[in-house]
């Protein structure tokens, strides 16, 4: 009964989306305030209805209503409650409903917080959101209905993929979607601005907080996903340049570029058409990510061709949405010429380089991700473009970006003296050299490249701190810094820390794979590790084999590591639970594998230096985004139509 209720709410939401996406547009074109007022009401109604539907689906998962096909395929009575709830979005149907829910949430947020937007702009933004919502809701209802009933309900479900039964992954999709779908708001703003033919400082100011929020969630979501891969897959790595990872990384790069270009559009009335273009591209990449992950093309183009309904629908949706936006951009974009002139060497110039670098990097990742698909379509055979491609393309592109990133905040707007800016950073340069040389001399496995990476991280960090110091001058000035600029400083410092973590963990990872018998001791990176015993134990819905390792350093006991190998009752699928001891200097990481039949076990031990820095850096970046967002100045609470009124 509740499921039918949810289904009904979803259908109603589709009807609301039709109204929300058409009438306000007509109202805005005619100047009819009554029709325009439908927009916020529609957005609120849509959020309410989709939330009801989502609640109904979640209820079905909680009470294990196996008469629903989606629940029967993805849940099980023996699952812990957290994973029953997380199971709501741990599958295709539910995750698309989550997508729709978050989209409606953002629409409602624009309606709620957009009190001082121009009426026409607000109506148009919400209408565009409604149109996207219509596309997604129609997709859910016609191709992936989560409320589809089974003829006869099975006694128990087929359970959730054990790999996904993990707290990290339970919260990964909602965070990632808050980021992906958050970019839809920016997209709607861009399309609305194109319809209006006007992009001014007020518009740019409105777009920034939405981009910032989306960017923060996206950063958090990607980090959580990476962290999950790190401890759950048991390979000791944290990023595999897997197409699914790339699908979330490309929108992040575009959103980062957008954050920076929106600043130029707001402060200097330049790069306006470019900013609008980026807003479209960022959401296009989000949709492309959804398409790649949800259509099944990644496993095989042919599998996609044999069961095409879902994939073809998302592809069509992508082509129509983005195509319409690009046509609109081609038609109206050239009218968005800015008035701001600037020298190549200036803050604007540096931000432009940032945009160029990020865009080209995103494009090269896109190429590497799609190229195998193209070849497959052409019948030219299967190839995999692996991590080496991405490393060789992405890292060289990021090096100059990081070099410039340190200097850019020191440059003045319009026209700057690059020599003076670099000269003022001489201490940062000295620190960077000291770090680079220190690493080179003190670590016997230090390659030139890794030392350079550490020096680069030090350079960015020192320059960021120095820039903050010159900006605030005194301790009191430090406290008086606006939260927006604290946000920038934190984000840049976070990047620096994360770069150090990435460099160190890639360059100096120690890996030891061996067969050990209980009682044996081995040594890795200065730790003596004794394999004590293996016990079998019983979890809520799995059995596990748990190995115990005593870790000592110089005779003193450090910790006990207990990696597990689990076999879930349903599906009999094994998973690996790595045991990790994180420290500031590096993670000790242990994985226990299969027994060799002679009393030994395959054991993998890793020492991953500075991995924690990566997560810390990412957290600091998210913190920076949050801090910026909490600043009243970034939220543009005042009516900012001064320029429009002046023009009228």
């Amino acid at each position: 009964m509740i499921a039918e209720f949810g289904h009904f709410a979803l259908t109603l939401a589709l009807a609301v989306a039709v109204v929300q996406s058409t009438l306000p547009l007509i109202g805005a074109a005619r100047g009819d305030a009554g029709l325009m007022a439908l927009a916020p009401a529609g957005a609120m109604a849509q959020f309410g209805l989709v939330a009801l539907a989502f609640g109904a689906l979640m209820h079905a998962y909680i009470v294990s209503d196996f008469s629903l096909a989606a629940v029967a395929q993805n849940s099980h009575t023996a699952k812990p409650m957290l994973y029953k709830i997380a199971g709501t979005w741990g599958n295709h149907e539910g995750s698309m409903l989550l997508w729709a829910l978050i989209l409606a949430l953002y629409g409602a947020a624009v309606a709620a917080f957009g009190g001082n937007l121009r009426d026409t702009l607000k109506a148009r933004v919400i209408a565009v959101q409604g149109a996207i919502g219509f596309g997604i809701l129609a997709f859910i209802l016609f191709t992936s209905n989560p409320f589809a009933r089974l003829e006869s309900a099975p006694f128990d479900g087929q359970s959730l993929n054990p790999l996904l039964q993990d707290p990290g992954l339970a919260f990964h999709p909602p965070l990632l979607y808050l980021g992906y779908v958050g970019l839809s708001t920016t997209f709607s703003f861009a399309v609305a601005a194109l319809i209006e033919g006007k992009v001014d400082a007020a518009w740019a100011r409105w777009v920034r907080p939405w981009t910032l929020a989306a960017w923060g969630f996206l950063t958090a979501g990607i980090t959580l996903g990476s962290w999950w891969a790190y401890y759950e897959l048991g390979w000791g790595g944290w990023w595999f340049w897997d197409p699914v990872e790339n699908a979330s990384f490309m929108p992040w790069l575009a959103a980062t570029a957008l954050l920076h270009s929106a600043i130029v559009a707001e402060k200097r009335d330049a790069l306006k058409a470019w900013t609008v273009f980026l807003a479209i591209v960022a959401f296009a990449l989000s949709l492309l990510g959804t398409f790649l992950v949800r259509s099944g093309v990644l496993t095989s183009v042919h599998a996609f061709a044999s069961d095409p309904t879902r994939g073809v629908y998302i592809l069509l949706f992508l082509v129509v949405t983005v195509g319409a936006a690009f046509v609109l951009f081609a038609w109206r974009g050239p009218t968005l010429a800015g008035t701001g002139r600037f020298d190549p060497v200036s803050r604007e110039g540096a931000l432009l380089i940032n945009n160029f670098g990020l865009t080209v990097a995103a494009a090269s990742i896109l190429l590497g991700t799609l190229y195998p698909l193209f070849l497959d379509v052409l019948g030219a055979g299967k190839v995999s473009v692996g991590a080496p491609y991405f490393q060789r393309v992405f890292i060289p592109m990021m090096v100059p970006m990081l070099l410039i990133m340190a200097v850019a905040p020191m440059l003045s707007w319009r026209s700057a003296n690059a020599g003076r800016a670099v000269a003022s950073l001489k201490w940062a340069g000295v620190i960077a050299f000291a770090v680079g040389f220190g690493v080179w001399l003190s670590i016997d496995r230090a390659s030139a490249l890794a030392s350079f990476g550490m020096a680069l991280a030090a350079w960015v960090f020192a320059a960021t701190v120095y820039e903050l110091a010159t900006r605030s001058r005194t301790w009191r000035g430090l406290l008086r810094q606006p939260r927006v600029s604290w946000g920038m400083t934190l984000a840049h410092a976070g990047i620096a820390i994360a770069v150090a973590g990435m460099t160190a963990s890639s360059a100096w990872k120690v890996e030891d794979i061996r067969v050990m018998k209980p009682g044996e001791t081995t040594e890795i990176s200065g730790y003596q590790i004794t394999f004590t015993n293996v016990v079998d134990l019983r979890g809520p819905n799995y059995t596990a084999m748990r190995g115990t390792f005593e870790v000592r350093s110089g005779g003193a006991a450090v910790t006990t590591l207990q990696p597990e190998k689990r076999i879930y009752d349903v599906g009999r699928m094994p998973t690996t639970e790595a045991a990790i001891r994180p420290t500031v200097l590096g993670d000790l990481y242990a994985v226990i594998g299969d027994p060799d039949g002679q009393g030994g076990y395959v054991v993998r031990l890793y020492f991953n230096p500075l991995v924690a820095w990566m997560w810390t850096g990412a957290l600091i970046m998210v913190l920076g985004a949050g801090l910026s967002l909490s600043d009243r100045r970034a939220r543009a609470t005042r009516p900012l139509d001064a320029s429009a009124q002046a023009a009228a």
Partner: protein
Amino acid sequence: MKPKHQRLALLGLGALGLAGAAALVLTAFEDNLVFFQTPTELATKSVAPNQRLRIGGLVQEGSLVKQGSDVRFVVTDLSHSIPVTYRGLLPDLFREGQGVVAEGRFQDGTFAASEVLAKHDENYMPPEVVEALKKSGEWQRTTGK
């Protein structure tokens, strides 16, 4: 600075960056852009069984055996060689000593081709000249055949 110079600088910078990025991408793509692989390249890497691929090299002199429409020959790059079987029509340029590209998959150590393409070299000359060169002993493996 004049707008003209600003545009020139932006264009120059953009072109430079784009060229650099293209170079990076092209070098990183490496063997994914090659149309075929030589026997030596294949000797150094493992090939999944039943994986479709293209091999390229010269048809070894004296290796061509025809039985009806079945053809057997050996593709070589002068350091490694691969035996090939094929059933079907051969292109006109196909002959011993000439370049060839075969598409197919490995079956028990021999390469079962489903398509054979001839690859011609970059030398063009009239037959009489070739004869004359051969007579005078100037004809070298590297420039022809």
